[in-house]
């Protein structure tokens, strides 16, 4: 454990490849990194884990000189360094493999590896030497590539190997990988881990960003957990259990401030049976998911982000095809319906990535509140919009949902995150839909707005809506849900009653420990 405020002592200096002290970075009012200390020992694999938005990438971009911290200092190999840009970091022996690769598809592997620092002979590029050197490095670290092949023809996994080779060729002794497994197949991930181990075997240091517990447990020596821009702890991996890690990631202070409720279970509105789906990489993202949602109940989906929740929401709203299984909304097979027809059949959807799917930032509040109902009376008749009605309706919703805006003509981009979410909720909750699919309703929303949003969800429950609430925040689920289903790796690991929500049991299931005695049964 690294002490919170103390600077590294003298004898630690030599040992530390990287030491960050009190790093703070703000974007406007948002604090992305809040006084973070981080010490990475030479020769270890140091994982930095945290939810999306916890501040991992910001911290690494600061370390690599892509961003400048507002406060705090950086020591590289024991020397106080102002990292004004990547060139400084590279000179100090740092190398970074980004989430998005920067390769030239028309060039060969070796040419890409040496791009910008070509080996020359008589003023010309010495291709043979480049190929030989690439081959040597790839053999040494188990990074299988054919140096002569053209990059445009290769898979993402191999592209990542090329990025790693690029970093090695530039003399990196400390390698930062930003979510390296996000684009890899499980097989490729295992190969990557072997490579990482061969790095430390040669005395190099690896910093590795992830939000996947499994791989962190598998490969790292030390873990630093970030949450909401703050460091939670740095611990040796061996001392940690998976559920401890989950608890640190999602927050200890899970408050079980449960909303009072009357029992109001009605008919089955949504029925999901043995649903399978693939993600954008064509890998299974949903595996045999079955559950039901009844009117007047809130069913929560818990889980660490990236375990199939996004895909589930997309399948249910018609934006992603299911590869197998069936989902029925009020008895109608969703697979046969277009997104528009699903909406007409009774879906309202509060999307997880609200800035992309939930609103058009450049359009007015009124125009945003029109989406999905532009073909219906009283908003339009015979295909002609009635802007008076649209505008009046928007004004009413602004008042009802307490949206802080000047009026319906205000552009959505002028609003705060919480108010933008309220625009989405106002639109979706007033659609008279029987089924509400609510994904991360309070992500990036301030406390006051969170309360209001939770109140609104409970009102919808009381009005007899069937609600599926997807959230990575356990306290939110515990407060609102009647039942909580826990997802891991595309499966539902088990079900917990909302009023008996047990942090430890949910944590175990979120970490992938099956709870057979609690296996989900269609209720």
């Amino acid at each position, binding site marked *: 454990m690294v002490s919170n405020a103390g600077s590294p002592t003298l004898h630690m200096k030599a040992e530390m490849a990287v030491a960050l002290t009190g790093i703070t970075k703000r974007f406007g009012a948002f604090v992305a990194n809040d006084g973070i200390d981080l010490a990475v020992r030479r020769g270890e694999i140091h994982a930095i884990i945290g939810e999306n938005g916890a501040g991992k990438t910001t911290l690494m971009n600061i370390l690599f000189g892509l961003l400048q911290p507002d406060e705090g200092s950086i020591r590289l190999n024991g020397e106080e360094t102002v990292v004004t840009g990547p060139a400084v970091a590279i000179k100090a022996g740092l190398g970074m493999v980004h989430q998005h690769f920067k390769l030239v598809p028309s060039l060969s592997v070796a040419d890409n590896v040496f791009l910008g620092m070509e080996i020359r002979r008589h003023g010309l590029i010495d291709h043979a030497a480049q190929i030989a050197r690439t081959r040597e490095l790839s053999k040494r670290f188990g990074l299988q590539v054919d140096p002569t092949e053209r990059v445009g023809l290769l898979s993402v996994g191999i592209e990542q190997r090329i990025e790693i080779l690029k970093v090695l060729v530039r003399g990196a002794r400390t390698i930062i990988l930003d979510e390296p497994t996000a684009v890899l197949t499980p097989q490729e991930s295992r190969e990557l881990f072997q490579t990482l181990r061969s790095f430390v075997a040669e005395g190099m240091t690896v910093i590795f960003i992830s939000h996947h517990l499994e791989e962190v447990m598998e490969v790292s020596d030390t873990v630093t957990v970030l949450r909401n821009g703050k460091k939670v702890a740095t611990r040796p991996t061996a001392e940690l259990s998976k559920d401890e890690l989950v608890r640190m990631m999602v927050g200890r202070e899970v408050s079980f401030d449960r909303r009072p409720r009357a029992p109001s279970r009605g008919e089955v509105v949504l029925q999901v049976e043995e649903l399978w789906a693939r993600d954008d990489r064509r890998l299974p993202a949903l595996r045999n998911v079955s559950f039901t949602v009844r009117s007047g109940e809130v069913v929560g989906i818990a889980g660490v982000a990236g375990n199939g929740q996004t895909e589930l929401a997309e399948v249910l709203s018609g934006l992603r095809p299911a590869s197998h299984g069936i989902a029925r909304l009020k008895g109608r097979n969703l697979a046969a319906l277009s*997104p528009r027809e699903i*909406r007409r059949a009774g879906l309202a959807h509060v999307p997880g990535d609200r800035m992309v799917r939930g609103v058009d930032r450049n359009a007015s509040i009124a125009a945003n509140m029109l989406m999905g109902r532009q073909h219906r009376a009283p908003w339009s008749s015979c295909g002609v919009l009635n802007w008076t009605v649209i505008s009046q309706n928007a004004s009413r919703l602004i008042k009802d949902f307490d949206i802080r805006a000047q009026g319906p003509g205000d*552009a959505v981009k002028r609003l705060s995150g919480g108010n933008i979410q309220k625009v989405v909720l106002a639109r979706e909750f007033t659609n008279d839909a029987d089924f509400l699919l609510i994904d991360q309703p309070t992500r990036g929303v301030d406390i006051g707005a969170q309360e209001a949003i939770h109140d609104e969800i409970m009102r919808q429950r009381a009005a007899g809506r069937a609600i599926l609430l997807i959230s990575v925040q356990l306290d939110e689920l515990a407060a609102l849900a009647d039942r909580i289903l826990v997802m891991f790796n595309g499966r539902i690991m088990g079900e917990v009653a909302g009023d008996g929500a047990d942090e430890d049991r949910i944590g175990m299931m979120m970490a992938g420990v099956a709870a057979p005695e609690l296996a989900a049964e269609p209720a």
Partner: protein
Amino acid sequence: MIRDRLRDVSGQIIAVAVALLLGAIIILLVGESPVRVLMTLLRGAFGDQEKIAGTLLQTTPILICGIAACIGLRGGMFNVGIEGQLFLGGFAAAWVGFAFPLPPGIHMLAALALAVAAGAAWVAIPAYFRARYNTNEVVSTILSNYVAVLLTSYFTIFLFKRPGGWSETPPILATAYLPEIFAFSRLNWGLAIGLVLALGAALIFRYTSWGYGVTMVGSAPKFAEYGGVNVKRQGFVVLLLSGAVGGLAGGVETLGVHHRFMEGFAPGFGFDGLIAALLANGSPVATIFTALFFGALRSGSLLLEVDTSASREIITVIQALIILSVSAQVLVRRRGDSQAGERRWKF
């Protein structure tokens, strides 16, 4: 909202001002007086009623092509093939005009209708590939221009050449003429068609459910998809409409001005229209003014080359500078937007 509007418009004005300033510097470098050039341009564009009519005559094809571009831009489609659609529309109108004698009025409408159909049919190929295989419409529509121009050349030279003429079709019959507005100018009712189109497009985008869907597909496609708009089909329809208007532009030129189709008769109007639409930020009503601006520049430049020692090409240079500053400004704004948008989620 007013502030947004102002910010957008100020960007365009700055872009044009920067271009004009650079243009003035170039004029100085070639040894002319920018003031004299400006005065001559104004005189050439608005000096007397004939000059004004001449300016409007130049404005007409830019305006109609600009509306075609606006329709595409609104729906998030970059139709760079308006040029080709104009050529095919122009040829189709001429063909109806010289080959099928019909009663007055009906003849003209039939020729325009075929021009519209030809433009739409021509863009249908890239539009289909866009909808079906997600082919980049910018590349496919640009390339279709070359095919269209050469195809009409082939039709003109090898199939329908006026005997003894210079690579042009026979003249169309007077029944198919788009009538001229004034006796003293070739200015014709095509201008009115352009204005009606601009207003119509603006109304459709603003006041119909369909137009709302299209606008949303253009500005936030994932949002539109989520909201139940069929993004692919909408993109296809939008490109088709854009192409149809592009074809109409060619028909208007043929029936209103040239009264026949000439090989390679109107290069660049498609691109001028696209620039006008971009400068107008995709707004059909604003395109009326940007098209007028470019029309006046072109028309004024015709006097410029006679009355001063400055070359008419200076206008091409200024136009290119406007494109550069507008696209630079668009890029800057996009970057600002995307940073603000992604900042919340990506740390």
